């Protein structure tokens, strides 16, 4: 299969037609992708591949895929997908993405796509040379709350952005945690940042996109293993970064902890005119900024408005929970936009430079000089 020209999908795809989609890996994360692929008019689910025959068979049955496979090469050859979702553990991504690109398919890869920025660069360059698109899952960028924050930034309500704070608290060491099972070691432990690598891509792309994609200057990262033991490489991250002083001197703070409660994924953006805060696990949006009534009344109006919104968010979140509109809802929006773009032979919403930028920031956080 030969791509017809740079930036277009393979010749076999007719402009506007549904994309022949395939999935590699029928694990837990596939349950976030497969409902879209089953239900969307933009996708025709032609195959699901997993090393476990029963996983491939049952996933194909549950999500109305044309066939289940246990061999990637066979699926790529038989099903001729236009796009493949690579949903396997991270250490397998490089070879699988490479195979899919060689087969002439676009790739939508789960995060973290690759362990290092250099490896990401190699595959992004290969995709570009083949006229194919390689997209990493940056789902939280497409959540309602982050889009609302982006609107505030884009329409100038927050002024010039000076600080971005991304903070996650998650009980990764809890008894119920899939990362803490000594009997079934999660492969994410083998990534350079250990378990935190599973979330680092989210931190990095949110930091980059909300701070205006600065060239990061000094980065200081404290990686800790407060809980000790051999299973976890790190269970705590506290990092500060400052943008290029001559370009965009934004300050960033990334924080991950498994020692505080409740679980949260908060994002705060502070600008010269105001600030916005949200929590992606328990969605709400607090905006502090100039209000009618002047400087004297602004703090009171801010509290009244945000208090009312917070109460409303509580009720709305209860309804959203009942309707299973969870923190991963941005993925469906991202997939829909990606498929819409590819159907039209246009570029998807997550760009190679954004993918590279996230990988490079993780590299910077792990670099020896950041730990001094």
């Amino acid at each position: 299969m030969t791509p017809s020209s740079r930036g277009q999908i393979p010749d076999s795809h007719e402009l506007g037609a549904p994309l022949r989609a395939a999935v590699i890996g029928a694990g837990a994360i596939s349950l976030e992708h497969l409902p879209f692929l089953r239900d969307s008019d933009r996708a025709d689910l032609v195959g699901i591949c997993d090393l476990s025959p029963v996983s491939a068979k049952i996933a194909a049955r549950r999500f109305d895929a044309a066939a289940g496979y246990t061999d990637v090469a066979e699926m790529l050859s038989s099903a001729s997908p236009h796009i493949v979702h690579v949903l396997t553990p991270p250490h397998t991504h490089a070879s699988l993405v490479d195979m899919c690109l060689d087969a002439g398919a676009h790739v939508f890869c789960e995060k973290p796509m690759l362990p290092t920025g250099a490896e990401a660069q190699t595959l992004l360059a290969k995709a570009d040379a083949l006229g194919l698109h390689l997209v990493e899952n940056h789902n939280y960028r497409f959540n309602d709350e982050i889009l609302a924050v982006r609107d505030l930034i884009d329409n100038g309500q927050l002024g010039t952005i000076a600080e971005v704070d991304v903070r996650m608290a998650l009980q990764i060491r809890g008894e119920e945690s899939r990362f803490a099972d000594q009997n079934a070691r999660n492969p994410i432990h083998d990534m350079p940042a250990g378990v935190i690598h599973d979330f680092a891509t989210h931190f990095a792309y949110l930091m980059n996109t909300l701070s205006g994609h600065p060239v990061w200057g000094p980065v200081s990262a404290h990686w800790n293993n407060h809980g000790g033991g051999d299973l976890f490489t790190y269970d705590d991250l506290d990092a500060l970064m400052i943008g290029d002083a001559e370009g965009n001197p934004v300050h960033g703070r990334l924080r991950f902890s498994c020692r505080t409660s409740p679980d949260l994924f908060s994002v705060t953006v502070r600008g010269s005119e105001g600030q916005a805060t949200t929590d992606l696990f328990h969605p709400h949006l607090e905006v502090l900024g100039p209000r009618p009534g002047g400087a004297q009344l602004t703090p009171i109006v801010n509290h009244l408005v945000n208090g009312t919104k917070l109460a409303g968010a509580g009720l709305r979140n209860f309804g959203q929970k009942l309707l299973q509109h969870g923190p991963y809802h941005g993925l469906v929006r991202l997939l829909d936009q990606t498929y819409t773009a590819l159907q039209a032979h246009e570029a998807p919403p997550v760009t190679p430079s954004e993918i590279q930028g996230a990988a490079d920031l993780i590299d910077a956080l792990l670099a020896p000089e950041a730990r001094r």
Partner: protein
Amino acid sequence: MSAKHRIFITGATGFVGRHVVADAIARGHDVVALVRPASSASALAAAEATGRLSFARGDLASRDLAEMMQGCDAVLHLAAVKGGDFFSRFSGTVIGTESVLNAARTAGVDNLVAVSTFSVYDYRQRSANSVFDESFPVISDPRGRDEYAETKLYQDELYEEFGAEDGHHMVMLRPGMIYGRDQLWHPLLGGEFGPIDLRVGAKGRPPIIYVENTAEALVLAAEALLDPARQASVDGQVINLVDDDLPTQSEYAKKVEALEDVPSSIFVPLPIMKAAASTVAAINAKVFDGRMKVPSIALPDQVDARFKPFDFRNDKSKRLLGWTPRFDLDAALRRSAGSVDLVADRLAAS
């Protein structure tokens, strides 16, 4: 007493597994117990002391599972995941079973005692109080059912595939709700609805079975499968397991309440629970397009599965396995409430 066999048991340190190990050893068999690398095997200390138990340290996904099974006459597969989201259950129960059966194929272990569940039956297909035996219909489409039933149905498919292969022999046991020490209060009495505990129904006689009775039936099934004279009678059979003289929900609850603290709960008559569940299901379908996540106790098929009264029978298990429940309800509750090491006690009684 049957001939001596070597039986590979998964889930060996679990609630049921430890009693199966004890019973198998008490009946003269050798046991290879699969125990996860970081899990304690202290529950099996008395069994280990007999010298008839060896441990295979690994889990269902271990690459050397087939090697661990070498020389065994049968696999008795108990391990399953009963909690968590769909994928946790699918991974632990279905993929785990696939791995065990593949290992058995590689190791040349042709005999399988497969443990299924009553949850695979379609309780909506027959009217209340009708006879419930192995001819009761099984759920035809797993999709849309609760995660436990769905994954156990997929597991049953794997069992049946294995049993249908040349040279393989398989008997599938479906125990009712298993109770025992630390697990006396069970979901067939009621359950959580958000922050509230509900008791649903009082007069039904749920299909319960005491854990040590279950263990003995499973070992008897292995013996029957491995006995050339009896193999044909159980090969490919599905056998339900419930105790004799099943108590009503109310009778059972009163006896348990006399032994231990039970959750304080609100009583809901079964017809009201059924009506409420049907109403919620209709609203969910019409208003929310089925997207609303409803607590399992309020799902119509779950209400039927857990509380609808039937006339549960155990004739087939008695006939094919030669099994009679060793402990009646009172004896079972006494043993459950006591502090004696039940594994050691079973071994001492042999």
